[in-house]
């Protein structure tokens, strides 16, 4: 019984939040890794792209809520996501047209694009603040729990409860659907394959008649969708605050790099690895250990290995360890 209780407590506080957070990071890291693979630079504006997409979703959600449109028990935001994606696509394609394309035509070194993306980051950050302000916005509605802790306790008769929030369920299901779609697209469609070819060997792709501008356009479209979805899921699960999205850059980059920059599979693995490490190490394990250890050995303190503020440190240390042993990341995203 104690083992079961420990397992439930662990699931409730570490496993379930970890899976949800990992899914959000994975979707974010996929966007970063796609830009890296195709456009060959790390896009510092990605966090703010997520914030932008989510902002549009929040605004549309509010409009729907005002108009009394809802898909109860699911959050209205789900209905608003397509609109968010469309606006974000328009914004990214516009940015590419006005900003990035010029530098591509000049055949600049990719590091210049990194610096350019800093400029884009400032601008997007400013736009989001201008439109919705820097404050915290709540936009989730609908049923709060798929299963509340109490229901679980009543069902199982255990001391520990397992709560699964609706947003967590939605996050995981959406992430699975999105990832399956993405892999189907990259692995099975002509356009998807041409993207992989371009990422693998630019010259040969050109000689094969692949149009780089088209590849870049499709990439931005996918990145817009991924960023909006990742941002919205994160916002539903926690809340929407532009600055927090900017701060997600570190764990997202860490996920992408741990997985192997340029590798979609790596981005997903990296996302979950970073998320679980963060949640496990910053969660007080007292409850779990309390069930598992004999009473005399039960820990006095919280057994929180590190305070939650050190979650960035966790991303970073994991990154360091992986790179020490596998300098190209878990899955090498580059051509051999």
């Amino acid at each position, binding site marked *: 019984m104690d083992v079961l209780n420990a397992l439930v407590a662990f699931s409730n506080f570490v496993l379930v939040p970890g899976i949800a957070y990992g899914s959000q990071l994975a979707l974010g890291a996929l966007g970063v890794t796609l830009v890296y693979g195709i456009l*060959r630079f790390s896009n510092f504006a990605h966090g703010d792209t997520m914030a932008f997409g989510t902002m549009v979703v929040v605004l549309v959600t509010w409009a729907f809520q005002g108009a009394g449109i809802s898909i109860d028990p699911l959050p209205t935001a789900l209905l608003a996501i397509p609109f968010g994606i469309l606006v974000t696509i328009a914004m990214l394609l516009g940015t590419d047209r006005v900003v990035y394309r010029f530098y591509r035509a000049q055949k600049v070194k990719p*590091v210049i694009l*990194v610096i350019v993306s800093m400029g884009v980051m400032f601008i997007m950050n400013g736009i989001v603040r201008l439109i919705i302000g820097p404050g915290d916005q709540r936009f989730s509605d609908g049923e709060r729990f798929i299963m509340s802790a109490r229901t679980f306790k009543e069902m199982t008769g255990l001391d520990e409860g397992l709560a699964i929030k609706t947003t967590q369920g939605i996050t995981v299901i959406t992430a699975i659907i999105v990832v399956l779609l993405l892999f189907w697209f990259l692995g099975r469609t002509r356009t998807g394959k041409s993207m992989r070819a371009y990422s693998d060997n630019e*010259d040969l792709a050109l000689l094969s*008649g692949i149009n780089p501008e088209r590849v870049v356009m499709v990439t931005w479209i996918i990145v817009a969708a991924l960023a909006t979805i990742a941002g919205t899921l994160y916002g539903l699960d926690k809340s929407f605050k532009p600055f927090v999205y900017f701060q997600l850059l570190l764990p997202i980059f860490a996920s992408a*790099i741990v997985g192997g920059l340029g590798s979609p599979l790596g981005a997903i693995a990296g996302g979950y690895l970073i998320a679980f490490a963060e949640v496990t190490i910053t969660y007080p394990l007292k409850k779990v250990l309390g069930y598992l250890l004999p009473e005399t050995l039960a820990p006095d303190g919280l057994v929180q290995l590190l305070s939650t503020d050190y979650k960035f440190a966790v991303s970073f240390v994991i990154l360091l360890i992986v790179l020490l042993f596998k300098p190209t990341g878990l899955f090498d995203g*580059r051509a*051999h």
Partner: protein
Amino acid sequence: MGAPDMSDPYGDRGNKDRSITKDSGAELKPGAYSGTPHEGAAGEPFLIGDAMTGGYGAGPDILHNCTVAVEKGEIAVIVGPNGAGKSTAMKAVFGMLDLHGGDVRLGGTSIAHLTPQARVSEGMAFVPQTQNIFTTMSVEENLEMGAFIRRDDFRDTMAQVYDLFPILKEKRRQKAGELSGGQRQQVAVGRALMTQPKVLMLDEPTAGVSPIVMDELFDRIIEVARTGIPILMVEQNARQALEIADKGYVLVQGANAFSGTGKELLADPEVRKSFLGG
């Protein structure tokens, strides 16, 4: 390695930080053409780089009045000592060199002003010496990408490629990067054949493979030529290449030193002495 060039405002200051940029290794740059194109003479070869003179950008000329050509249904081989400009001549024909003299004609029409990509659409296929496959993609995907510009059903062509290179059919689900050197070259040639090109250009297809594999590759190349596709290739292994060649060009310092049929060149005492080791 690029020389320090501070006139380039968009240089990278030597950055090689993998966490922010991915090195593309791309070097394909369309060349500029400032010569005078003209109609080809009647009965001239199907593809001809005619009296080509030029180099890279403002640099010195690498090619001097250099002519290479291939007839329909034939194999033409460019040989010569190291640094003779063999690969450069090939690149010039494919539009990757700045030419200010001479012309390149395909089927009697000048293509000298076209970009390499446009020449692919015109029916030319080029297999670079290195980085000539998509290493992270399967063999079959490599062939599919070769056929990217085709909107028709290319399954027949793929079957033909598999007939030519049976090993590729066997390994079609495997990543091309995991294959042996000789097999990779087969993938590279197979990819180029997928456009059903009017002419195939190979840049040192046997570079870095063992002698046995080299012989096999030459056999395959003859087979490809037998299907009616003219082949223009650069070869380091002059003797073996000239043995299979209908036409050979010996280049020295960017200019034609000797040309003739493969047999003639092999028999020429001077060619033998200078390039074939007696």
